[in-house]
C-alpha cells in the first residue's frame, strides 16, 4: 500500500453570499498517488475548479474552507498560515489554469515570469534560474527557448502560452499539480500535443496530478483514475477504464453517452435532461434526482456510498455492468 501524495478527506468549501450559503464543495474525498493522474470530471459549476483552488489555499472571499482535511505527503494543509502556504504554492504543489491568454501577465517578459517563480522558492543566482527556465521551456517542447524567454506573452500563440504555463508549473519539481481545464481554450490538434506533453512530464517526474475537465474524451486516454463530480459532491470514482466502460452512477452514464463520436452521423446526440440544480437549494436528497431516470422515493434521502472493487458510487440505484451497457433507452427522454 503506497501512501498517496495528495489525500483529501471530507473537504467542504462554502461561499457565504448574500443569497445564502453555497456549498460549492460538499464533503469530497480524493487521493492521488505519485506519477498518477486523476481526472476530475463534471459540468460547469459542479465545484471542480473550487476543489483545485482549495488545495492550493487560493479560495477568495466570500469563499472559505469550512471543514475536512487536505494532506500533501501526509502534511495537513488546512489551517496552515499564509506564509507557509505561500512556500508550498508553486513549490511542492502548483497549478495550471484554464485560459492561457489570461494567465501570463501581459506586461512582463516570459523570462521574468519564470525566473520569479524559481526565486520565490530558492535563493539561486539569476543566471542559474535563467538556465532552469530555459531547460523548462525546452522540456515542454518549445523550440528555440532562448528567444522565447525574451518574448512577451502576446507574441506567443495560445498553445505556446499554455506550454509556458505548464513549464512554470513544473519548474520547481512539485509533488503535485492541479490542471484546471488547461486544454479547453485550445484547438484539438494543440490539445492532444499538450495532453501528451503533460502526461509525459507527470510520469517522468513522478508528479501526482489532478486534471480537471468537463470533457470525458480528454481524460479517457490520460487519467489513471476518474472522479465524477456533481453539484459539489463526488458521485462516482474508480479506475478510469472501469468507470468509462461500465459507469455505475446514472449521471456518469449520461455523461458518457453525450460524448459525440459513439453516435452515427445524423443521429440525435444524447442529452441529460434538465439543468444543474442551484447549489443554494441543495438538501440531503440526491442532487441528480430531478434529472435521473431511476429516481424513486428513496432518492429524497442522502444516498449511501457503495464500494465495489476499488470503485465508489453515491447512489441508491447503482447501474450494474449489464444494465449500463444497454441503458441508452432507460434514461429519461430529453424532450420536452
Amino acid at each position: 500500500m503506497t501512501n498517496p501524495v495528495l489525500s483529501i478527506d471530507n473537504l467542504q468549501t462554502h461561499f457565504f453570499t448574500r443569497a445564502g450559503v453555497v456549498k460549492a464543495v460538499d464533503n469530497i474525498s480524493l487521493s492521488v498517488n505519485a506519477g498518477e493522474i486523476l481526472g476530475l470530471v463534471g459540468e460547469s459549476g459542479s465545484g471542480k475548479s473550487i476543489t483545485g483552488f482549495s488545495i492550493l489555499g487560493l479560495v477568495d472571499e466570500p469563499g472559505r474552507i469550512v471543514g475536512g482535511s487536505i494532506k500533501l505527503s501526509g502534511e495537513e494543509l488546512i489551517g496552515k498560515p499564509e506564509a507557509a502556504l505561500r512556500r508550498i504554492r508553486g513549490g511542492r504543489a502548483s497549478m495550471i489554469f484554464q485560459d492561457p491568454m489570461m494567465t501570463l501577465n501581459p506586461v512582463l517578459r516570459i523570462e521574468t515570469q519564470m525566473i520569479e517563480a524559481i526565486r520565490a522558492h530558492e535563493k539561486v543566482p539569476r543566471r542559474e534560474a535563467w538556465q532552469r527556465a530555459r531547460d523548462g521551456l525546452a522540456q515542454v517542447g518549445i523550440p528555440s527557448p532562448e528567444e522565447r524567454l525574451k518574448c512577451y506573452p502576446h507574441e506567443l500563440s495560445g498553445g505556446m502560452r499554455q506550454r509556458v504555463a505548464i513549464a512554470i508549473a513544473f519548474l520547481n519539481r512539485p509533488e503535485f499539480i492541479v490542471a484546471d481545464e488547461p486544454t479547453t481554450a485550445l484547438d484539438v490538434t494543440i490539445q492532444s500535443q499538450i495532453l501528451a506533453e503533460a502526461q509525459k512530464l507527470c510520469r517522468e517526474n513522478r508528479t501526482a496530478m489532478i486534471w480537471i475537465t468537463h470533457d470525458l474524451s480528454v481524460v479517457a486516454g490520460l487519467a489513471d483514475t476518474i472522479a465524477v463530480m456533481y453539484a459539489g459532491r463526488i458521485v462516482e470514482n474508480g479506475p478510469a477504464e472501469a468507470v468509462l466502460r461500465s459507469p455505475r452512477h446514472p449521471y456518469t452514464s449520461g455523461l458518457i453517452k453525450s460524448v459525440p463520436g459513439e453516435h452515427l452521423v445524423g443521429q440525435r446526440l444524447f442529452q441529460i435532461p434538465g439543468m444543474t440544480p442551484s447549489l443554494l437549494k441543495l438538501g440531503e436528497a440526491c442532487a441528480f434526482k430531478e434529472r435521473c431516470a431511476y429516481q424513486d422515493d428513496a432518492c429524497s434521502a442522502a444516498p449511501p456510498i457503495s464500494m465495489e472493487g476499488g470503485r465508489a458510487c453515491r447512489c441508491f440505484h447503482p447501474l450494474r455492468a449489464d444494465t449500463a451497457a444497454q441503458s441508452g433507452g432507460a434514461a429519461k427522454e430529453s424532450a420536452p
Partner: protein
Amino acid sequence: MLAFLIRRIGQSAVVVLLMATIVFFGVNLVGDPVHMLVSPEADQAEIARVIQQFGLDRPIVEQYWLFLKGAVQGNLGTSFIFGQPAVGLILERLPATMELAVCALVLAVFFGIPLGVYSGIKPKSRVSQVIMAASIFGFSLPTFWVGIMLIMFFSVQLQLLPSTGRGEVGSFLGIDSSLFTLDGLKHIILPATNLALLKMSMVIRLSRAGTREVMQQDYIKFARAKGLSFGRIVWAHLLKNIMIPVITVLGLEFGSLIAFSVVTESIFAWPGMGKLLIDSVLQLDRPVIVAYLMIVVFLFVAINLVVDVIYSLLDPRVSLTGAKS
C-alpha cells in the same frame, strides 16, 4: 520609432498652426489695448502714433502674416507693457512655475498611488473608506479656499511655513531653483500641496479602480499560485498594469498644472507664469497672451508625445512602429 516620431512631429506642427490661428484672431477680437496704453488725457495724434507704433493700423490679415513670420523665427511679438520680447518674459518665469508643477506632481504620485492601491486591495477596510472620503473632498473643495486655509493654519496659526513668495533661489548644475535652498523648500511646501490635492485625489481614484480590476485577473491568481510574495505581486504584476491609465491622465494634468496654476500662484504670490498671464489679460497685453497660449500649446503637444513614448515602454503590446489597428 523614428518614423513614429517624424509622423507625430508633422501632426503636431498642424495642431500648433491651427492653434496659432485661433489664438491670434481670438485675442485680437477682444478689447482695444490702445486705451490701456495711452494716458486718459492723450489727444488723437498721440493715440494714432501709438496705434501705428504697435502696427495696429494694418489689416488684421497682414498682422497675422507678420505674427506667423516672427513665430517661426521664435519671436512671438513684443509686450506692449514691458517693451520686451513676450517669449523672454514668459520663459523668465517658467522655472518658478515648473518647479511648482513638478513638486505638485511628485506629491500627487507619491501619495496618490500607494493610497489608491491600498484602498483597491482592501476596499472594505476602514482606512480605505477614509481615503476615499478624503479624495472626494480633494475633488470638490475649491483650490483657492484650500489655499487660504493652508495659509491660515500653517502660516498664521502655527507660524511654521511662509505664506508668500518663492524664497531664496539656489543654483545647482547651472539650474536656478528654490528647491536647492532650505528657505526655498519651506516656501514651496504650501503652494505645491495646494496644487497637488486635486491631482492626488484623481490619482487615488484611478489607481484604486485599476487595482480592483487588475487584482481580479487570472494572471494575479496565477502569480499567487506560483508562490510569489504579496509584495512581489503588487510591485511587479500590479503596478505596471495600473500605471498605463495613470500616466495618460497625469500627462494631461501636468500640462494643465503648468499652464493653469494661476489660482495657486495668485494666492501664494508665486512669481510664475500664471501670475504674468493674469496681469497681461487685465492689461490687454496681446503679444504676451498670445505667446503664453502658444507656449502652452507647445507644452501639451510635447507632453503628449512623451506620454506615448512612456506607453510603449510600459506596455509591450503598444508598438510605435506605425502599425495601426
